[in-house]
C-alpha cells in the first residue's frame, strides 16, 4: 500500500475508535460474511451493549439488533419494537375520476301517445315515452329525452283497494267521473282505462257497451288514453277492432296483445287507425322478443309498440321482473333491434301484496303503506328500465312524477357543509 493511503486508513481507524456511532453510506461491502469484533468492558458485572441496525436502502422497515458483550461471551438480545417513526409529512395524492365509457350503441324508440286537434285527435296534449340510449339514471351518460310517465288507473267497474276507493268516493262507480276526478283533482296527465268487466269470466260486457264507456271517458277528459281489454285473447280482438275504429285519430295505446292471440288480427285495426299497442310478455325475455317481433311483422313499427314484461308486486316476484327488465333494456342498448321499444309496468299490481292491503295495525297505517308499496314497486321497475307506469294511487303517481320532473330541472349540487349536517344536526 502506498504511504499516503496507509496513513489515511490509519487516521480513519483512529476516527472510528473514538466514535459512538458510525454510519456508512454508499458503501458496498462485498462479502459472504461480516464479522464484528467487540471488545468487552473489563468489569464483568457491567456488560457492554452494541446496537446493530440493518436498514435497506429502499426505506422499508429496518432491523435493529442489540448485542450484549461481556467477558463471558456475546449474546443477542431481542429489542422491544421500535417506537413508531414520527409520521412523515404526507400529502394528498390527487387523482381524477373518469366517468365510465359505456358500450351502448342501441337506442330505444320514442312512442307518442294521444293526438291533438292538429294531429287529427281531440286530446289537449300528447305524451312521449322512450327515446333513451342508456340505462335509467345513468345521468353521466345522458339525460333521457323523455322522462318517465305515470298514469292513473280507471276501471269500468268499482274495483280498487279500500285506500283508493276512499280517495275517489262515489266517482268510482262511473268510469268517466273517475277519470275526471283523476285528472282534475289529482293532476293525472294520462289515464289508463281498464275495461275489466268485458272479461267473459267477470261480466262479459258487450263490445258496444264498452265502446260507450270509452266515448264517455274521451268526453270527460282531454288527456291521452291507454285502454285495456279483458285479458281474453278472443274477446280482445273483437274489442280492439271496434274500439280502434271509434277512437280513430286519438292515438290510443291498446293494452294488450299477448302470444296466445291472433296477433295479426289484433294488430290490424290498431295499425290502420293510427294507434299504439302494449305487448304483454310474462317475465321471459324470449317471449318478449317473440312478441315484439310478431307485432312488427304484423306491421307496427318500433315507435308504436310498448313492451310490458309483467311486474310482480314487491315481495311477490318483483325481483324477477327487475332482472328481466334489466336484461331486456341492456340487450336493446347492446343492439337487439326487436327489444328497442319503451317498457311499461302495471305497478298497481303492488296492491296484490299483503303488505300493501293488510289491515294489521302493527304494520302502520295502510293509507300510506299502500301507496308506498306501490311506488316502491314502481321505482324498482323504473331503475330496471321502465318508461311508463300504470298506477292506482294518486300519491304514488305523484312521486314517480317527482322523479320525472327532477330530470328536467337544474338541480342543486351537493354541498359538503350541507351534507355533513346529517351527522351534526338534531332531527
Amino acid at each position, binding site marked *: 500500500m502506498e504511504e499516503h493511503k496507509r496513513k489515511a486508513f490509519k487516521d480513519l481507524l483512529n476516527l472510528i475508535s473514538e466514535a459512538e456511532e458510525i454510519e456508512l453510506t454508499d458503501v458496498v461491502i462485498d462479502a459472504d460474511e461480516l464479522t464484528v469484533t467487540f471488545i468487552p468492558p473489563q468489569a464483568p458485572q457491567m456488560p457492554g451493549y452494541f446496537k446493530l441496525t440493518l436498514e435497506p436502502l429502499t426505506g422499508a422497515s429496518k432491523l435493529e439488533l442489540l448485542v450484549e458483550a461481556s467477558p463471558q461471551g456475546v449474546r443477542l438480545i431481542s429489542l422491544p419494537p421500535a417506537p413508531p417513526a414520527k409520521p412523515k409529512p404526507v400529502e394528498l395524492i390527487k387523482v381524477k375520476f373518469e366517468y365510465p365509457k359505456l358500450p351502448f350503441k342501441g337506442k330505444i324508440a320514442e312512442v307518442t301517445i294521444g293526438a291533438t286537434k292538429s294531429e287529427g285527435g281531440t286530446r289537449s296534449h300528447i305524451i312521449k315515452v322512450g327515446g333513451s340510449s342508456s340505462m335509467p339514471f345513468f345521468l353521466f351518460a345522458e339525460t333521457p329525452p323523455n322522462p318517465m310517465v305515470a298514469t292513473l288507473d280507471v276501471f269500468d267497474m268499482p274495483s280498487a283497494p279500500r285506500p283508493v276507493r276512499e280517495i275517489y268516493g262515489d266517482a268510482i262507480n262511473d268510469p268517466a267521473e273517475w277519470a275526471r276526478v283523476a285528472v282534475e283533482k289529482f293532476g293525472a296527465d294520462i289515464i289508463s282505462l281498464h275495461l275489466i268487466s268485458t272479461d267473459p269470466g267477470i261480466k262479459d260486457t258487450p263490445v258496444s257497451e264498452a265502446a260507450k264507456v270509452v266515448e264517455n271517458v274521451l268526453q270527460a277528459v282531454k288527456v291521452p288514453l291507454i285502454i285495456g281489454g279483458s285479458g281474453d285473447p278472443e274477446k280482445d280482438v273483437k274489442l280492439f277492432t271496434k274500439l280502434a275504429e271509434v277512437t280513430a285519430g286519438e292515438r290510443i295505446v291498446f293494452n294488450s296483445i299477448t302470444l296466445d292471440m291472433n296477433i295479426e288480427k289484433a294488430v290490424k285495426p290498431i295499425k290502420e287507425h293510427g294507434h299504439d299497442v302494449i305487448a304483454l310478455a310474462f317475465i321471459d325475455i324470449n317471449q318478449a322478443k317473440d312478441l315484439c317481433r310478431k307485432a312488427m311483422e304484423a306491421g307496427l313499427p318500433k315507435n308504436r309498440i310498448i313492451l310490458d314484461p309483467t311486474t310482480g308486486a314487491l315481495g311477490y316476484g318483483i325481483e324477477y321482473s327487475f332482472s328481466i327488465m334489466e336484461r331486456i333494456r341492456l340487450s336493446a342498448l347492446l343492439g337487439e333491434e326487436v327489444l328497442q321499444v319503451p317498457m311499461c309496468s302495471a305497478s298497481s299490481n303492488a296492491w296484490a301484496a299483503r303488505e300493501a292491503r293488510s289491515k294489521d295495525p302493527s304494520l302502520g297505517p295502510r293509507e300510506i303503506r299502500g301507496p308506498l308499496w306501490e311506488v316502491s314497486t314502481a321505482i324498482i321497475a323504473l331503475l330496471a328500465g321502465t318508461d311508463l307506469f300504470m298506477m292506482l294511487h294518486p300519491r304514488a303517481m305523484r312521486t314517480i312524477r317527482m322523479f320525472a320532473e327532477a330530470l328536467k330541472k337544474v338541480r342543486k349540487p351537493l354541498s359538503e357543509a350541507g351534507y355533513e349536517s346529517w351527522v*351534526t*344536526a338534531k332531527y
Partner: protein
Amino acid sequence: MPKRLNPLQVYRYLPQTNCGECGEKSCMAFASKLIEREVSVEKCKPLFRDPRYASKLKELLKLIRPPVKEVLFGVPPHEVKIGGKDVVYRHEWTWRFQTAIMIDIHDEMDEDEISKRVKFVNEFKYIRIGKELTLDGLAIRCVSGIPEKFAKVVSRVMKLTSKPFILCSYDPNVLEEALIVAKDRKPLIYAANERNWKDVANLSIKYKCPLVVSAPGNPDLLRSLVKSLKEHFGLDDLVLDPGTNLGDSIIDTISLFSALRYAAIEEGDELLGYPLLGVPAVIWLDKEKSPEEKAYIESIIASSLMSRYADILIMHSTDVWPILPVIVWRDCVYTDPRVPPSVKPGLYEIGKPNENSPLLVTGNFALTYYLVKDDVEKAKIDAWLLVIDTEGISVESAVAGKKFTSDKIAEAVQEFNLAEKVKHKTIILPGYAARLSGELEDMLKDWRVFVGPRDSANIKKFIDKVWIPEVFGEKSEE
C-alpha cells in the same frame, strides 16, 4: 361481465392435502366451491394456521378478491359483512352480502329516546317465507361536539345492544374518545374526509377498525383520499361515502352510485372497489316536509339506492311502514336469480286432512305456496292443497298469462284421484282466479266450485263461513 376463475387457478394455492377440515372431500372440491363463492376462504384452516402456507395464502387472497372488497365490522354473533360484489347487474351472478341497514341515534337525545330506538333495532322482526328479516345496527352521531359526552352515550348503547354500530363524527378527538370505549366491538368509523384524513387514518390503524371515506359530491376527491389512505397508511378496510343528495338531486346520487360501481367492476378501478354507503336519513334535514312525508321519501331513497349498489344505508325513521318495503326488497334482490322461486306442483297435505277436509287450489310460486300454507296452518284447518304448475309465478299473473287454467286444474283433479280423496267434491279457487269458476264447473261435471278469498289471510274466515259440517261432514275425525 364478472371475472370467473377456474378451480385449477385456485387449487394451486391450497395446501393440496385433502385434509377435510373445511368439510369438503378434497382441496379440489373446496376450490370449486370457492370460485362459486359458496364457501369462504377462512374455512381452510391450515392455510391460515400454518406459516408454511403464508405466501400461498397471500397470493390466493389476491386472486379471489372480488372487485368490491368485503368489509367486516361488529363482532359475532352480529358481525356484519358488506361489499363483496362481483357484478353490476344482478342477473349475471347473485349479489352477495345484503345491504346493512343502520338506524341513527345521537348524543343529545334523551336517555328514553335512545333506549327506545335501540330497542326498536334490537327487536324489529318481519317474518317472510319462514325467514326473519331484521335490522343490522346503529349509527351513533356526535351532535354535541363533546368527546366525553359522545363516549358516554356510546358506552350506554353498548350495554343496550350487541349489534354493530357506526361512530359518526368528523372530529378525530371525538372519534378517539369513543374508540377507546368501543374498540373491542369493532365499530365502523365515520369518517375520513379532506380535512381530517391523516388523523382519522391513524385511528383506524391504532384501533383496528374499518373506515368510511367521505367526499360528498366529489368523486375526484373520493379517489384521491382512497389512494392516499392506501399508499400512505396501508389501509384497505374502507367504505366509500360519495354523499347522498336530498330533494330532486337524489337522482344525481343514484347516477353517481351507478358510475362508481360500474367503474369498480366493469373497468376494474381498484380505488373504487369498496362498499358504498348511502344516507337516506339526509331527508330529515328538510325543514318543510311533514315527518310522514320524510319517512315516505326516506323509504323510497333507501330502496332506490339499494337497487343501485348501496352496501350500507343509514336511516332515521323508526316506524315499521317505511322500513318494511326496504327490508322486503333487500330480501328479494339478494336472492339467487338462477333459482326459480317455485315449489313442486302436486297435492300437499296441511295438517291431517281426511275425506271431509276442504280442498284448496293455488299456484306453485314459492311465496304463494308458503303464504297459503302458513295461513291455513295458523287457522288450524286440516286441508288438501292442490298446487298447479304456474311456472313459478303468482296466481294473479298466472291467470292473466294462461298458466293457471281450468284445463290444468281439471287434469290435476284427475291425476291425484281427488274424487276418491274427498267426499264433498268441492274445490276452492283462489279469489284471483274467480273468472275460471264457470269454465271449471263445466269441466268437472259433478263438482262444486267455490271462489275463495284473494288473500290467503282470509281463508280462515271463508272456511268458517262456508264449511258447514251438515254439508261437508265433520272437518276432522277427532
